[in-house]
């Protein structure tokens, strides 16, 4: 048997390879128009980045006769031979047409000056033209067009993509996916012109390409124009010899890949199988295998193919599987992160029909097997692969900015090192070891990864902070030793001790350094000041509302000067004095207390400041006295110990000069009273505060804040800011309103009483320490040499002030 194959592309190659593999012993001749045997067209673009033509080219199976650089011009079905361009004839018993397809070039003026993107020769020509070019345009925003545009970019051109459809890759993604994709592509510096056609390829007076004119008349300047606007099956030989072809092209074949002439087969992109032309290499290969099997007497059949695609274009994952529409759909869209995922579902919401992914193709791998089957889980869970947002953090998203640790690193630690808790993550990745603000995200990543996060505070207590709070409150416990003896184990650590100290302070107040409580405090609370990198402390006198008399300002200046402290204005409208050694602290406080100052909690998990704008007293826009309110609030809540620091601000009108909405509780004056916002914060994960209540009277405002703070203090996790706490509340803001404004839990009287107790028992911690010789005795650098300053503390000078010098 003599077999002749016309065209030597991937489909022809797979065909002869299959024949050879099956031990075909007849004569096989492959006639191809290109100057080389079939090559890997899918990876054509790699030719531009250095892969040689030889490397791309497939080996010719043994025993196959090839006639390269030879075009077949006609098929004589009666004589059973093909005619080649050089006038020769090649007789066959069985003919296989594998002529593939050609890029579609729209018939616009100047199109002959444009390039196409299909063969190695095309790429050689584009590369040569790009040498003197600055800009390039690709017509066609599908899979191949984007690949061509990327190639132009890699050749150093500023590349534009012109696409007829309103969005890119219309065959693979819908409009939403297209817009996310557009964001990705534009961020790479490519110009995207969707919803636009082509008027003409413009050439300059020298006959060279000057650009592309769009139908609206605008000119996209470009010296290289590439058409990649779809493919047309190369069915001209078949047409000419009277084989059936489809209306819109393609050689009609049956499931055995036979054309209307039983001795002629067609495979690959030139074939119209089941009414479809398949423009992907996978189905083309299957067709080739089917034809080879049939010719050798087999019964294989081509039953159509899955056109699902998953690819990485310009570094962006794009995937499409199954149907592209359905009765119902569920979409996850994150334009900022550049992720778009959509699932199509049957109208009874049970069967998965298909999906689209841009930016993250993970659902493709997981869900493609479920197409046409019952959904394995709730659609939203499938898209989010978990409950919340963190799992959708791309691996490269930075979680810990202090130590430059990405979500992927943490997932690796969880997956490969068997890490099951936050300390484990810290040990493996260093994430969370510096400022600690990323720890809640670490927890979420752990949760999402399926590791059950224990709510236990630490190895010493199996309870959460909120549970411990209730235990302490209900059992009337007053000391850490009592609590750990009855409800914990061991002797505590730097996690549970300060947490319990805070709970005890919230419930009982009393001095933070009284008795055993001193040993529970973080160094800042233990020394009532803020530790700095070299072991010195900073002192921040309280300046309620940021209002200060000139006399007090002078005292601060004098103290700073006399003790040689570095001075800086803080963001909370206070003045921070740095560089005090332990033994200097009481002396500094004494001076400040004498001048009427008191301890400012720049340290500790407590109320920091209540900032304010100048308000109605001076400001021509102000509608309420924001300074007076800020002072009242700061004095009311000073010293209040809480799960994390608390910040507040009051603005005198809606212009919001005090930035109240970035605070844990922020107040903005209205004509009628005060608006209260809660749950804001700046820092690592900025969040605007939510409006809790409007137009409150002063009395209502204070009562609502009292309850908000006490409810937070009771129920929040250790180191959980109000923002995260609010987000974790089941029912969110509405629930919070019910609890503290409608008293749905019946605890408001309790919360009020607790706050009253706090206000009534507040005492200045500095003054109390100065009055207590035993407490004062601890303020020495060396227990055996009380007068000796710590010699390791050394300063240099910068801009007229001190700065710490570390030994290394």
């Amino acid at each position: 048997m003599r077999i002749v194959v016309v065209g030597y592309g991937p489909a022809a190659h797979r065909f002869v390879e299959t024949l050879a593999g099956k031990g075909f012993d007849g004569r096989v001749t492959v006639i191809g128009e290109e100057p080389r045997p079939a090559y890997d067209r899918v990876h054509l673009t790699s030719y531009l980045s250095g892969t040689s033509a030889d490397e791309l080219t497939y080996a010719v199976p043994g025993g196959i006769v090839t006639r390269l650089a030879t075009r077949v011009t006609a098929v004589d079905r009666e004589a059973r031979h093909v005619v080649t361009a050089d006038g020769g004839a090649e007789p066959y018993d069985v003919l296989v047409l594998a002529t593939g397809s050609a890029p579609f070039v729209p018939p616009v003026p100047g199109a002959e000056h444009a390039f196409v993107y299909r063969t190695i020769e095309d790429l050689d020509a584009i590369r040569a033209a790009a040498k003197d070019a600055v800009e390039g345009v690709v017509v066609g925003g599908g899979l191949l067009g984007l690949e061509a545009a990327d190639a132009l970019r890699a050749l150093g051109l500023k590349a534009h993509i012109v696409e007829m459809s309103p969005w890119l890759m219309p065959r693979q993604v819908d409009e939403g996916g297209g817009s996310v994709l557009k964001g990705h592509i534009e961020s790479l510096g490519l110009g995207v012109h969707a919803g636009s056609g082509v008027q003409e390829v413009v050439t300059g007076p020298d006959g060279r390409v000057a650009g592309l004119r769009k139908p609206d008349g605008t000119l996209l300047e470009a010296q290289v124009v590439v058409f990649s606007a779809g493919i047309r099956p190369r069915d001209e030989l078949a047409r000419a010899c009277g084989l059936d072809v489809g209306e819109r092209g393609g050689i009609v074949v049956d499931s055995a890949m036979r054309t209307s002439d039983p001795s002629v087969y067609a495979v690959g992109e030139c074939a119209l199988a089941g009414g479809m032309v398949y423009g992907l290499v996978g189905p083309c290969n299957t067709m080739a295998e089917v034809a080879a099997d049939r010719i050798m007497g087999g019964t294989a059949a081509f039953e159509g193919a899955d056109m699902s695609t998953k690819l990485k274009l310009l570094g962006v994952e794009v995937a499409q599987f199954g149907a592209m529409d359905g009765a119902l759909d569920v979409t996850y869209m994150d334009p900022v992160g550049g992720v778009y995922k959509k699932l199509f579902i049957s109208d009874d919401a049970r069967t998965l029909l298909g999906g689209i992914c841009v930016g993250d193709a993970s659902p493709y791998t997981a869900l493609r097997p479920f197409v046409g089957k019952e959904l394995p889980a709730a659609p939203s869970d499938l898209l989010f692969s978990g409950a919340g947002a963190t799992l959708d953090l791309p691996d490269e998203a930075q979680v810990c900015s202090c130590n430059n640790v990405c979500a992927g690193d943490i997932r690796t630690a969880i997956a490969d090192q068997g890490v099951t808790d936050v300390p484990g993550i810290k040990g493996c990745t260093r994430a969370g070891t510096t400022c600690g603000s990323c720890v809640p995200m670490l927890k979420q990543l752990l949760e999402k990864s399926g590791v059950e996060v224990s709510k236990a505070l630490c190895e010493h207590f199996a309870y959460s902070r909120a549970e411990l709070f209730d235990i302490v409150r209900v059992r009337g416990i007053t000391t850490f030793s009592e609590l750990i003896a009855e409800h914990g184990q061991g002797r505590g650590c730097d996690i549970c001790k300060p947490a319990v100290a805070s709970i005890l302070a919230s419930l009982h107040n009393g001095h933070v350094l009284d008795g055993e409580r001193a040993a529970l405090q973080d160094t800042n609370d233990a020394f009532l000041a803020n530790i700095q990198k070299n072991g010195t402390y900073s002192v921040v006198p309280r300046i309620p509302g940021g209002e200060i008399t000139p006399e007090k300002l002078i005292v601060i200046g004098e103290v700073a000067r006399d003790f040689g402290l570095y001075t800086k204005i803080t963001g909370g409208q206070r003045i921070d004095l740095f560089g005090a050694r332990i033994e200097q602290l009481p002396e500094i406080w004494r001076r400040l207390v004498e001048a009427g100052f008191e301890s400012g909690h720049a340290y500790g998990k407590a109320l920091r400041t209540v900032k304010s704008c100048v308000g109605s007293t001076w400001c021509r826009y102000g509608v309420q006295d924001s300074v007076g309110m800020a002072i009242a609030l700061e004095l009311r809540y000073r010293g209040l110990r809480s799960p994390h620091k608390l910040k507040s601000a009051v603005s005198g009108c809606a212009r919001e000069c005090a930035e109240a909405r970035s605070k844990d509780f922020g107040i903005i004056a209205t004509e009628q009273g005060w608006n209260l916002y809660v749950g804001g914060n700046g820092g690592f994960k900025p969040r605007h505060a939510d409006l809790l209540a409007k137009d409150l009277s002063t009395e209502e405002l204070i009562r609502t804040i009292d309850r908000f703070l006490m409810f937070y203090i009771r129920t929040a996790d250790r180191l959980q800011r109000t923002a995260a706490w609010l987000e974790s509340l089941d029912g969110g803001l509405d629930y919070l309103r019910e609890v503290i404004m409608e008293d749905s839990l019946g605890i408001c009287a309790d919360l009020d009483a607790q706050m009253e107790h706090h206000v009534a028992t507040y005492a200045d911690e500095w003054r109390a320490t100065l009055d207590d010789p035993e407490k004062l005795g601890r303020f020495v650098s060396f227990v055996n040499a009380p007068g000796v300053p710590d010699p390791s503390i050394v300063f240099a000078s910068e801009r007229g002030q001190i700065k710490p010098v570390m030994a290394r």
Partner: protein
Amino acid sequence: MSWTRICAYDALAPERGVCALVDGVQVAVFRTYDGDLHALDNLDPFSGAYVLSRGIVGTRKGEPTVASPLHKQVFSLVTGRCLDEEGVSVPVHAVRVRDGLVEVNVRRPAGFFEELRAVAAAG
């Protein structure tokens, strides 16, 4: 090296540290809840600051510990080993009670501060 008295045992509060300057070496001395004494170098190897005596004292799996007040790395009071990062440890010094007084025996030669100060002055 010999034993140096630093303070009365009663001056040490349970689960708090103090710092003593012994022949130019800063020694952090801790009294645990059950009354035992431990002494480590006061230098926190992570931050380079002399602060370990100001850390929170506790236990980890029964072993007495102190956490650096700066970045919270936990060290064993018994071995000086950092329990959060392998390969890091701080020197342990000998400590005992004689006649109600705490005595420390430093295991490292003095002279370190002279060096440190020279560096600081130069820098």
